[in-house]
């Protein structure tokens, strides 16, 4: 009985501490982490996607040109694209303002745009179709609930609210009708995340001073992390290098 009481009070304590998040004070966000993700070594073999034999409408959207898979894209400057970088620990305890609108995922030419993206916990993922063919949006949630919705050509957007954080690894979203289509959506409880683009760099601005674990995730090469301490008004530069040497 006593154990039960202890458990109950612990539960309430835990619940209370969860509710203790302070409202975010923008004046604190003076520090910044920037950096880039390098790629060393040989790119893996991949085969171009043949859409024509399966769905001519997809291939027409690319003028019949076969597309490369977006799994590993190495930029001209030797950096790696589509790496999701975020603050894994250190940014807890704040109640950040929510961004307006939904996170967008477009289906265009039977590919997902963007291929990798981050969004906020509590925000909705709005999946749009710009294709003249039918798709289905199949999300494989590990913490969030999985979903599987069909979207015929011209259908209205499908919106899915992400109630839980799910950033490591991000949630995979697939179209089963076109099995080459995949996309990754990281759901983060705070606004400190970025995806590397054509120059392979990332920037996590407006951080309060402190010590952070920064994690990078790539769909093929998995995660790596670094710890960084930044003072008021400072900017720290990090560099990640893929593939992970083992």
């Amino acid at each position: 009985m006593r154990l039960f009481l202890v458990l109950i009070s612990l539960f309430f304590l835990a619940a209370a501490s969860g509710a203790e998040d302070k409202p975010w004070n923008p004046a604190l966000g003076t520090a910044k982490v920037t950096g880039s993700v390098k790629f060393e070594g040989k790119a893996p073999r991949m085969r171009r996607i043949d859409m024509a034999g399966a769905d001519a409408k997809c291939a027409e959207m690319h003028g019949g040109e076969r597309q490369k898979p977006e799994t590993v894209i190495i930029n001209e400057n030797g950096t790696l694209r589509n790496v999701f970088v975020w603050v894994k620990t250190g940014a807890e305890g704040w109640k950040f303002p929510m961004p307006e609108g939904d996170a967008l995922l477009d289906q265009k030419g039977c590919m997902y745009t963007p291929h990798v993206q981050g969004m906020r916990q509590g925000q909705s993922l709005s999946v749009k179709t710009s294709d003249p063919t039918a798709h289905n949006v199949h999300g494989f949630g590990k913490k969030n609930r999985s979903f599987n919705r069909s979207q015929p050509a011209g259908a209205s957007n499908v919106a899915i609210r992400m109630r839980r954080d799910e950033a490591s690894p991000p949630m995979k979203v697939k179209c089963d009708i076109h099995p080459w289509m995949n996309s990754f959506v990281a759901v983060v409880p705070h606004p400190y995340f970025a995806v590397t683009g054509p120059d392979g760099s990332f920037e996590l601005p407006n951080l309060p001073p402190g010590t952070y674990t920064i994690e990078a995730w790539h769909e093929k090469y998995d995660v790596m992390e670094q710890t960084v301490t930044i003072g008021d008004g400072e900017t720290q530069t990090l560099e990640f290098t893929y593939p992970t040497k083992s």
Partner: protein
Amino acid sequence: MSDEHSDLGFLRKYVFSTDHKTIGIQYGITALVFLFFGFSLMMMMRWQLAYPGSAIPIIGGLLPDTLVDRGAMLPDFYNQLGAMHGTIMVFMGIVPLAVGAFGNYVVPLQIGAPDMAFPRLNMMSYQAFVIGGIVMLASFFLPGGAASSGWTSYAPLAVTATTGQTFWLIGMIFLIASSLLGALNFIVTILHIRAEGLTFFRLPFFVWSQLVTAFLLLLAFPPLQAAAIFQLMDRLAGTSFFLPSGLVVGGEQIVAAGGGSPLLWQHLFWFLAHPEVYVLILPGMGIIAEVIANNTRKPLWGYRPMVYSLLVLGFLSFGVWAHHMYMTGMGTTMSTFFQITTMIISIPSVIILTCLVISLWGASIRFSVAMLFALAFLPMFGIGGLTGLPLGLAAPDAHLHDTYYVIGHFHYVVAPGTIFAMFAGIYYWYPKATGRTLNVTLGKVHFWLSFIFMNGVFMPMMFEGMAGVSRRLFDPTIYDHGAAVHGLTVMTSWSAWCLAAAQIPFIINFFWSMRKTERAEENPWQATTLEWATPTPPPHGNFTETPVVYRGPYEYSVPGADRDFSPQYVKQEA
């Protein structure tokens, strides 16, 4: 023996009744409601098939956007409707109607018994059926919707499907339990409490058909019960009865022990489901035999060969299941065996059908509504049976397998086949159950419209199947050969909706006739079998005096008798 029951309360009398007649009527009403519901699901599917991608009128606007996009059906909803249509029609519609309703109501009366052998078991069977039905219907309200892997629930698709499939399996477990309890009860009742003088070859053909059906249920359902539990374990407990190693679903290897076999499910399923086809049709044949004998005013031609055929049919039905699986990669030795058994099993069916047709010779045919349905049954079941021929042979099946031809084939067997038999039974026994007769004009309108539109629904499917259009396609016009026969699809859809409208006279007739003041005679069809020896409607305990049987079931137009029927229960014709 009936007096002590006369002051039962409402609940005991109508809800928790142990009287076989009340249970029969409960089964009948529930099954008719399920049949209508299953039919409604199909009508929605027909809209999508006829007008792909356009909003469903009226209903479309009421459905949530997980099922429809601006009123137009989504493919996963179509799959749910397809799976549930099959399940509801077969397991919650026809079996409960044919066995639960007609079997329960008529069998004890026809064998001169006061009730079923185990009245409480009988009640339990009905209750298990209702629980199973509720679980099935509830699955529509789950987040992922109802089961969507077809009524056959092939693994591994069903194992990896949404929660609706779990409900489907649990529902099936209840439905199967219900059928098993019912089957035991029928066997014991028919074997043990027949009236004095009612030898086996004096049993009405309907009772024979119920006896064979009960054996089929008893022997065929347990494998599916086991299989359903296995699949439930695969889904919930991480076993791999039906999952092979190395499955990759959605680009990810699934976490399972592996080493199971997807084909095992198919074998277990069809080991039930082929005998199940005979479960669906045999009671129908029984009813048809009763109605034909009564309305031709002469004995059935070839009663004994028919009974023997029935037994052979029941026995052989356990040896043909794999003809559903020719295209799974089965070797030719196996397929040869199953082709031979399939051809052999067609022969007893031909005998029964031929006997029924030849029974018309030398008759004096009354075209009552029940008889119209019975007469329509013969050619319709004939088409259903004949189209089984190319499907039963592996080579033609290579083209026709899983096309609309298959759908047309088995619907000809169960829809204008069994369901017409059920209608015949309702028109024939309604006066017994209610003490009123159904209106003949409305009945004839119901018959003719149903007859025309049934064919309008299923005949085009034969041609679609010939053209190679696969079944279970959300939008067959995606294929060139599907687009070429789209006109037939539209015709089928309109026929289906008209068929629904054609049931309106029946529904009106059913309820309106119940309130008629004019009472039917005790034996309005001048029939010979024992159910007409009871008061109408029969009281609890059925017979006012214990009947004794003196002759065979269909002694009509006996030479020398003073009227054209000699009931089983009357000792001497004056």
